[in-house]
């Protein structure tokens, strides 16, 4: 919303503050100044101030509204121009309100004997400062009134009408050509329209139609200002893709009371500049008069919310400066906001009003907060992810972050889970519609970028969400992906990184199985499911060589799963060593089809854990259809004889 400093100055007698100070005052009170420039208006030096109006306050998308705010901040009174009441003529207007559910008020009047034409220079200049092109005098005056008061009005060329006007839900038309020349396709039963017996005259609250548009030959008009249920204006605006200065205002709360004053200003300006006269009675549809609520006000609450003392009488004065009516009833303080403040209804709303005018700058910000100690509720997966980052960087991996949305087809290559792809319905970035199902997608993009840029020694990881759909439910979990591109042709070294990571965080029980499903990108002979404590927690594989001819290895771990597993894991690796460790070997032979880890698993159960320091494979020797393994058992807290006795018994060597 733009205002000229001269307008504020004219509306607030006694205002001493300069343009910048006015801008800062409005900024402090909730309307951030997002533009400030010196301009020339009506042959005089002036300042154009631009403000963001985020609040549900149609009243402040207007010069008058912002002037009221400035006046309240400085403790002054805004004097809005007095406009003479309309003197109605005979003859009712033929208007019907059919869409009663959505129309709060319609004020309309006929003016005749007009002489339309070009606008005066000051008006053209003013509209240009507000980003609007001049159309003709009548249209420009309507826009001018909108900028001053916040109320959009609409002018209809009376001589182009076919019968009376009606505000209806659209049951009749499939399209309309707007004043801007664009054709809008309509969804019947959804839009509120202003129509005559033949045409759509306007999409109510959005834009006028071509059928009865004002041109320079227009002699007689119907001027209307209407207030609607703001929700339908917003819905229609979004559905039809039509956003205008009018819709912008009407989708916020606008006080129906003010529509009459805006119409009076418009009529007076039209009469003054075009020589026309009122030629009908005033049509005023206003079935439910808005009454401001009396909000129960706790005068202690502003101090409590601000953290500094704001005395009750100061608080009440601020409310009065904001045009609230204050009264006491049954020992309670009741504050009724002005009708143009329909955004207020709670004590907290009043607190904000008081503190914003009192001044946020008066609340000290430099004091260290005294907040009480409360319980720690950090989820363990966040702690685990932090630890994993530290371990992986110590192992020489670089962290990257990639897009969680990927190109169509990327998931087909890297997915290995039993879930469907989730796609965005309305992403502007159409090339990236799918949510990633594996971190491999982003890590491979990064690999290719690094390869293109001659980056060597590529070891990268990412921790982030992956997504999928199962039985109609949207699923996501935190995942850890690591990728390495090396000259090394074996998965073994890469596996060691993964194991260092998993062992460091507490898993010593790791195994590798042939997975139920292998991603297409994986070399099928070199792809393993990772199990920790028998739970499948991820996948490790070598990629099918691509154009870059690199040996690329990838592993992915479900961090949420391993967090859950770790929660129930009770490891204590710390022991008191009072004797030498005793290392003893034993050779065993297994058929080639047998898995050594299964043998070790059975073997481990034969030991008393408190005497076993470690169990490992010290050597492997192929023997035709068998393999010989040298198993090394290291014993703790035993004498040589005791260790030997156990060793012989466990390995059946007696």
């Amino acid at each position, binding site marked *: 919303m733009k205002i000229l400093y001269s307008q504020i100055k004219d509306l607030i007698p006694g205002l001493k503050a300069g343009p910048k100070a006015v801008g800062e005052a409005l900024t402090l009170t909730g309307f951030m100044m997002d533009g400030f420039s010196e301009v020339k208006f009506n042959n005089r030096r002036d300042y154009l101030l631009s403000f963001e109006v985020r609040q549900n306050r149609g009243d402040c998308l207007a010069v008058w509204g912002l002037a009221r705010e400035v006046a309240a901040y400085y403790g002054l009174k805004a004097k809005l121009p007095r406009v003479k009441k309309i003197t109605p003529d005979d003859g009712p207007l033929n208007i019907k309100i059919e869409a009663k559910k959505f129309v709060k008020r319609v004020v309309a009047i006929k003016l005749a004997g007009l002489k339309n034409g070009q606008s005066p220079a000051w008006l053209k200049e003013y509209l240009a400062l507000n980003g609007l092109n001049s159309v003709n005098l009548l249209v420009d005056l309507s826009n001018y009134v909108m900028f001053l008061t916040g109320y959009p009005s609409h002018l209809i060329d009376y001589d182009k009408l076919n019968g009376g006007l009606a505000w209806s839900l659209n049951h009749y038309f499939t399209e309309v050509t707007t004043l801007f020349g664009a054709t809008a396709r309509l969804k019947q039963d959804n839009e509120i329209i202003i129509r005559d017996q033949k045409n759509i005259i306007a999409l109510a609250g959005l834009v006028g139609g071509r059928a009865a548009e004002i041109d320079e030959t227009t002699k007689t008009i119907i001027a209307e200002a209407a207030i609607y249920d703001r929700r339908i204006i917003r819905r229609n605006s979004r559905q039809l893709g039509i956003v205008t200065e009018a819709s912008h205002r009407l989708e916020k709360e606008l006080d129906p009371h003010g529509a009459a004053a805006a119409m009076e200003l418009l009529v007076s300006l039209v009469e003054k500049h075009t020589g026309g006269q009122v030629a009908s009675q005033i049509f005023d549809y206003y079935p439910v008069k808005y009454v401001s609520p009396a909000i129960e006000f706790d005068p202690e609450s502003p101090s409590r919310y601000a953290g500094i003392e704001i005395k009750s009488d100061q608080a009440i004065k601020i409310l009065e400066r904001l045009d609230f009516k204050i009264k006491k009833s049954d020992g309670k303080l009741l504050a009724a906001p002005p009708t143009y403040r329909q955004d207020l209804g709670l004590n907290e*709303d009043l607190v904000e009003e008081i503190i914003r005018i009192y001044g946020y700058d008066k609340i000290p910000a430099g004091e260290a907060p005294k907040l009480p100690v409360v319980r720690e509720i950090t989820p363990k997966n966040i702690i685990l992810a932090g630890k994993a980052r530290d371990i992986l960087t110590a192992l020489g991996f670089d962290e990257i972050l990639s897009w969680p949305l990927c190109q169509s087809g990327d998931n087909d290559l890297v997915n290995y889970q039993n879930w469907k792809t989730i796609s965005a319905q309305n992403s502007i970035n159409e090339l990236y519609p799918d949510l990633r199902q594996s971190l491999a997608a982003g890590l491979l993009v990064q690999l290719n970028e690094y390869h293109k840029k001659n980056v060597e020694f590529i070891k990268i990881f990412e921790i982030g969400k992956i997504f999928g759909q199962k039985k109609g439910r949207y699923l996501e979990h935190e995942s850890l992906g690591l990728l390495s591109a090396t000259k090394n042709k074996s998965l073994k070294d890469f596996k060691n990184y993964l194991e260092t990571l998993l062992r460091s965080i507490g898993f010593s029980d790791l195994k590798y199985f042939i997975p139920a499903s292998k991603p297409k990108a994986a070399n099928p002979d070199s792809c393993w499911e990772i199990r920790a404590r028998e739970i499948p927690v991820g996948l490790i594989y070598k990629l099918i060589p691509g154009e870059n001819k690199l040996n690329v290895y990838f592993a992915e771990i479900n961090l949420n799963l391993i967090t859950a597993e770790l929660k129930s894991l009770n490891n204590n690796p710390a022991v008191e060593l009072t004797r030498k460790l005793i290392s003893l070997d034993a050779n065993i032979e297994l058929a080639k089809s047998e898995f050594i880890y299964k043998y070790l698993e059975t073997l481990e159960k034969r030991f008393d854990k408190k005497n076993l320091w470690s169990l490992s494979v010290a050597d492997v020797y192929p023997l035709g259809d068998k393999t010989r393994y040298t198993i090394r058992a290291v014993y703790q807290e035993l004498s040589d004889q005791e260790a030997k006795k156990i060793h012989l018994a466990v390995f059946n060597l007696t």
Partner: protein
Amino acid sequence: MPENKMKNLLDELKQALSSAQATADTKAIWRRYLGDKGSIKLALKEIKNLPLAEKRVKAPLLKRFYQEALNLFKAKENSLKNNQLQHELGSGSEELQFNLPKIGHLHPITRTIREINRLFTGLGFSLMDGPEIEEDEYCFQRLNVPPDHPARDMQDSIYIKKPNFLLRTQTSSIEARVLAAYPPPFKIVSPGRVYRNENVNKSNHFIFHQYQAVVVLKEVSLKDMFGVFNLLLKKLYGQEMAIRYRNKYYPEVEPGAGVDLECFNCHGAGCAICKGVGWIEVGGAGIIHPKVLAAAKIDPKKWMGFAFGLGLDRLVMAKYNITDIRTLLGGNLGYKYYQNENFIQSN
């Protein structure tokens, strides 16, 4: 003559040591000459068989020979050990330099998040995260933004399935989740990734990062909130940075606040970067709206809270001299092989 025998043995030892190539050879030499059954050791033991007078004269001489033999052996052994160590280490400092192992790096966003986390965990805050595919209820409705509310236009959403499932547009959705899941009191911070339906270019991205704080206690005030926010901004931007708090509308808070830093370019005078106003907005904050607490079945008469958030991407870009926001997620971010961030300064 035992001394002659000893002298000959010493010469023999010198010969053997001079031809020794490795520490393994010296072990054999030790056994042959100096071990318990070694010839020099046995020759020394012969002292006890000498007559007393001769023993007095020759014992010191033989012990000297023995000591010399030990010294020669140790000198050779040390020299061989040294050679072996040199061999194992490589031939010089140049080779050591080129064999430095690769250093891993954390992403600048992670580093910055950790830096901020450290401040907040020190103040007793917990860390929190939430889903990125979010329900309309948690992204908007529980935050006092009902359907058709104008505030929805502030954030253009990417929908997974209209109207109920979308990618979270703000980390405030985590606030809604935490309010629903944890009984107060609590103090949490939640760094996270958010999504808006915007075109990607040098200065805008449809994926970016926010940092959110939520506190629910028996009583809080704007002064408490400004105090916490000030600590954060002074830590990030330095003690001298001017900070401004002003009223700002956010549907989920009341009263709400916008938080600005004095423009780093013009220092408040007004320039093109700050659009002439002298300040640059960095975050939003406020006392949690009673409707938001009530939506989570937290009694607003018993509990109060504050929440604030700020964007991380521009902060990271300024800190790491990154000029294109796409670098943060797009593949152009590299790390120098030999160099890591100064640990002392970054911690």
